[in-house]
């Protein structure tokens, strides 16, 4: 089988062990039903299938995760991730159930989440995505990304075999078409990229937050908080491995981050609004915009709340926020 290795995966696979970053499997022991032989980092292998509930599974490939839901009428899958990940996922789903994948739902249009769906297309699955994702795929196509069959604007629900996957659009966030997905009746929220358990106060991987629509992030999180409140959601499933504070070492560590409290949404919202309001206040007080990042870093604004706080990353992040306050972008 000729498996094309994506740029991102190649970078992940080629990297040396990062000895300066603690990697821990701290937290609850996962219920892993399948696991790769290939190493990734620390205790983590390249990929794993984790049973979250009796019929909800998480597939982690490298630092990325999707979910799939198994019913006796078929499987609902999400973000195939990449050509190599999608191939592995299709094989592993077939070991879990005889049922075919009927739907693949994209959380957003980024290629590192939406690539690799062909094995599911070949099975006859219908691909579901927000209309703006479909437009993005037309504007900038990638042959590894299966284009959606079904698109929607505000809300869509996939129903299959007594389960449902409901997605809501609250405007641009990370990408301009990202949606969270509520798994029913289990009442869990699957979120990719915008927030990840265990904490919404984790420092951003890319402090330039280039793909985040700063101008709408707070509104986006308000939308999902509304869903959480209305549905009484307590659990979020995360789309990435992430960082968390390890009390044993006193330092941040990379953790699996599969499930966690829905409070992660409120925390992430507070992170965004905190930096935006602090920046606005500083400019309103007369600090020249070019000086705002250094001043807020020197004053250690939010430093005690942010896991993995790094002054240099914070400086870059605050530069980005200052640009937003001045330009609206």
């Amino acid at each position, binding site marked *: 089988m000729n498996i094309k290795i994506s740029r991102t995966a190649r970078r992940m696979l080629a990297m040396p062990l990062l000895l300066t970053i603690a990697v821990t499997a701290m937290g609850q022991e996962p219920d892993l039903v399948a696991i790769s032989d290939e190493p990734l980092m620390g205790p983590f292998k390249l990929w794993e299938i984790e049973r979250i509930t009796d019929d909800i599974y998480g597939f982690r490939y490298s630092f990325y995760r999707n979910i799939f839901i198994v019913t006796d009428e078929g499987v609902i899958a999400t973000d195939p991730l990449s050509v190599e990940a999608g191939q592995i996922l299709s094989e592993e789903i077939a070991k879990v159930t005889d049922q075919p994948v009927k739907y693949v739902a994209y959380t957003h249009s980024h290629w590192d989440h939406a690539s690799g769906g062909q094995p599911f297309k070949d099975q006859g699955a219908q691909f579901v995505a927000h209309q703006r994702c479909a437009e993005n795929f037309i504007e900038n196509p990638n042959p590894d990304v299966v284009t959606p069959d079904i698109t929607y604007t505000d809300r869509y629900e996939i129903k299959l075999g007594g389960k449902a996957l409901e997605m809501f659009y609250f405007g641009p966030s990370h990408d301009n078409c990202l949606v969270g997905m509520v798994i029913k009746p289990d009442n869990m929220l699957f979120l990719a990229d915008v927030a990840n358990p265990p904490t919404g106060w984790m420092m951003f991987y890319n402090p*330039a937050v*280039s*793909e985040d629509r700063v101008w709408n992030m707070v509104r986006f999180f308000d939308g999902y908080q509304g869903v959480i409140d209305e549905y009484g959601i307590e659990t979020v499933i995360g789309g990435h491995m992430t960082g968390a504070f390890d009390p044993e070492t006193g330092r941040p560590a990379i953790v699996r981050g599969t499930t966690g409290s829905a409070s992660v949404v409120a925390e992430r919202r507070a992170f965004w609004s905190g930096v935006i309001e602090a920046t606005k206040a500083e400019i309103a007080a007369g600090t020249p915009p070019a000086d705002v990042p250094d001043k807020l870093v020197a004053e250690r604004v939010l430093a005690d709340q942010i896991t993995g706080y790094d002054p240099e990353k914070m400086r870059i992040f605050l530069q980005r926020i200052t640009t937003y306050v001045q330009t*609206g972008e």
Partner: protein
Amino acid sequence: MKILIHSSLSLRLAVASIALCLSLLACTQESGQRPDYATEKIADGVYTFRFGDQRSLFLVADQGVIVTDPLNAVAAAAYRDAIAEITDQPVKYVVYSHYHWDRVSGAQLFKDAGAEIIAQERCADRFRVNPNPDVAMPDITFSEEYSITVGDKSLDLFYFGPSHGDCLTVFVANPANLLQVVELVNPPRASFPRDPLGSYMRPHNLRQFFRDLEFLANERGIETVIASSAIAVDDGQGGQQLSAATGPATIIHDQAMFWEAIYNTVDIAEAEGNVGIDSFVKIDTIDLEPFKPYDGYNKEDLPIIMRRFVGFYDMGR
């Protein structure tokens, strides 16, 4: 091209104040005073209004005035006054180059005096979902092309897809045949971007934007481009002066080649495994020669600029 300068301050004072506060809006905050401003005549009926380190294009005809980016409320008041020193004619139109608040705030006073505001439709879309009370909504929107004619002057507007933000519009002033691309193409020379983070850059369409722009410039026989900013440059006598309001159209191709070098470097770095787990191109693997001719050359900025493009290659946006 001869540029006549009518300034509220002496040129040296203006340059000194610019040189002291080159970052955006810094002039206002540091001095506590309104930045200096000046009107610069580019051609018959074609002017730039410079406020601090920003320039805005306006056209004066015998039947009215076409204004572009009002900049901000304070600038717009000075802008109105500067126009009144040249002509009694009313401002008929205000045209937004894109949706960034630091360029398009303050148009209300022109609107109150009867002007209509024009912008590309995606600018209007953004204002609707992300309003700013200082930014007046457009009255007229367009999709790909639009032309405004007042008397014997016209301003042609072109939209080539996302580039700097989602709605940046190219201006061609007629009959002078002068082109302006706010933020992206700036005399005196093609340069490094002012903000290396590049969060508003749209790599998925930037190449196509520059292709369309060059095609337009060639088709129209454009020889001169108009600046949207002012920087301090050597005056050749050991001092500094403000950069000129115009420059040769060759800047367009040069700037396109800067971005081409960025794309190519990132592409090669990915292929050769020279992008770290943090998604930064390893600085020691970058061939610096293609970048050295550009204004604002800064080796340390290159991985930061390229980070945006690594994201594009990974994610498609």
